[in-house]
């Protein structure tokens, strides 16, 4: 949200501010006030004083009035001294003063920041720009300091004539270096924050990656796969942080086109020897292909099943609700159902929708732990233990079985839901009015 700057607003206010803070320019306000003062003081001081105090008494409390009176009395005194010393004929002087504000009498010059005049304030006066604004040095320094809080080298300008205020400062090299460094640090904070966050994400990802490898492969095989930690090669350093991302993206279809390449990139060629049982490196390189094959087979199957189910449902609802023969437009319902089912299957794998984001991410990141648990569960059976002697392959098998069981459960749930929808109906009130609540 940017603050607005209607040009007309600025113009109006700029003009009014010039009016108010220009001691020597002849604005209506100035003439009026100086005219009033000079005329009253030239005739007699009494009426003016009375008038001032009466108007003030009507609007202000006693404290306030006193302050006002001191101010007006002081300026009147100053004026009277001035008038008696410089002019011999008060009437003509009055005319001169009211007609030309730049005459012998001038309204006491006023600091445009604190509004203090020569009478009621102390401090060195400066005229820092080409226009008529003048101010106390301290006031202006305060204003410049406020503007420089964010950027030490910011140029501050006069708000009316746009002249850059210039400071005569002792030019200290050390201070210059310090303030430059200081503003560099200030400017660098967002980048450093970003860098720090990136680093912490990277470290977390690496740790998670190492955890995942060790969980799935078992300590021994895992360490062999990672290689000696002192030092880890670049493949490990890039590969480990990528593991959580790959796990998450494996739930979508975004990276399908080059998912199979990723393990090759990370594991490298030297570990890839076709043996039986396949080494962990080989198994992991094959997993993306297995995943893709499984996904496409599954999608195909789901589309067929769901098409059939929806067809049944539409047919059933057609018969039961409308009471007409569903065979009238069997063909069109079939195609509609097929399209709906295909859409459904597409959604399932396309992006994070349908299952929400959190569930997808947590599910993906829990995968290593789940497959390890399933693997050790499988290890309880002597039959499997004899066929698959090592932990790693049992874990992989466990993970695959888990995915299969989970998907089947999902499919079963969908089926049950559709079936319920097919047979459900709203009960008539007459049916249950005698039942107890």
């Amino acid at each position, binding site marked *: 949200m940017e603050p*607005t700057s209607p040009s007309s607003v600025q113009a109006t206010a700029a003009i*009014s501010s010039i009016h108010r803070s220009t001691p020597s320019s002849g604005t209506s306000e100035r003439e009026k006030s100086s005219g009033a003062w000079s005329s009253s003081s030239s005739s007699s001081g009494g009426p003016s004083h009375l008038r001032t105090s009466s108007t003030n008494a009507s609007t202000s409390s006693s404290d306030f009035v006193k302050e006002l009176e001191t101010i007006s009395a002081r300026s009147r005194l100053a004026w009277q001294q001035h008038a008696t010393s410089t002019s011999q004929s008060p009437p003509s002087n009055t005319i001169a003063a009211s007609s030309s504000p730049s005459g012998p009498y001038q309204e006491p010059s006023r600091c445009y*920041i604190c509004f203090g005049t020569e009478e009621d304030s102390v401090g060195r006066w400066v005229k820092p720009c080409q226009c008529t604004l003048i101010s106390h040095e301290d006031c202006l320094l305060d204003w410049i300091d406020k503007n420089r809080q964010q950027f030490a080298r910011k140029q501050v300008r006069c708000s009316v004539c746009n002249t850059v205020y210039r400071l005569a400062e002792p030019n200290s090299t050390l201070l210059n270096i310090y303030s430059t460094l200081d503003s560099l640090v200030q400017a660098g904070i967002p980048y450093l924050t970003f860098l720090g966050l990136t680093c912490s994400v990277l470290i977390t990802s690496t740790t998670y990656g190492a955890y995942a490898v060790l969980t799935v492969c078992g300590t021994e095989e895992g360490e062999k796969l990672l290689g000696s930690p002192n030092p880890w090669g670049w493949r490990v350093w890039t590969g480990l942080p990528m593991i959580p991302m790959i796990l998450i993206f494996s739930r979508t279809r975004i990276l399908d086109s080059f998912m199979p390449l990723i393990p090759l990139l990370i594991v490298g060629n030297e570990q890839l020897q076709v043996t039986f049982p396949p080494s962990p490196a080989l198994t992991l390189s094959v997993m993306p292909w297995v995943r893709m094959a499984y996904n496409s087979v599954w999608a195909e199957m789901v589309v067929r099943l769901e098409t059939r189910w929806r067809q049944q449902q539409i047919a059933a609802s057609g018969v039961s609700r409308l009471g007409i023969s569903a065979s009238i437009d069997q063909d069109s319902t079939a195609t509609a159902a097929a399209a709906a089912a295909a859409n459904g299957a597409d959604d399932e794998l396309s992006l994070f929708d349908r299952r929400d984001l959190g569930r997808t991410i947590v599910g993906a990141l829990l995968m290593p732990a789940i497959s390890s648990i399933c693997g050790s569960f499988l290890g309880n059976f002597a039959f499997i233990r004899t066929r698959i002697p090592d932990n790693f392959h049992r874990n992989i098998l466990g993970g695959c079985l888990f995915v299969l069981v989970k998907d089947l459960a999902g499919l079963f749930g969908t089926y049950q839901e559709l079936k319920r929808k097919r047979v459900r109906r709203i009960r008539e009130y007459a049916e249950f009015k005698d039942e107890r609540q």
Partner: protein
Amino acid sequence: MSTAVHRRMLKEYLAIQKNSATRPHLELLEPIQEDDLLHWQAILLGTADSGYEGGRFRLDIVIPTSYPIQPPTIRFLTTICHPNVHFKTGEICLDILKSEWTPSWTLESVCVAISSLLTNPEPSSPLNCDAANLLRCGDMAGYNSLVKMYTALYAMDEDQE
């Protein structure tokens, strides 16, 4: 008591009393209590030929002790429908009250600026998106009638409340 701010407020008050006749759209601009020059109130009158015509809009003005180095805090007490005024809080989005503030502004000139903001809204930096969207789409009839309705609802019978 920081004397600088009080002296300045006192002088602004004097000037405001002196030229009260020269500002037709500012019905009132004065401290709420005479002994506290750091808390002011103002009443803006809606200009003729605008949707705000006939409305009286009360402003709450708080002067920081570092005034005029820091700008005053001004908000609408009267509910007002304007693209640059928050409908609920009355916060005003005006550059001279924030980044473009300079000490040469006075309370009076700021009030005049707010008054002219009423007739010159800036829909590109809205605090009230509904009003701003009407303006952006060029629906002047809709905008004006909306403004008129809220002026009639909130700004006309303030005294009876």
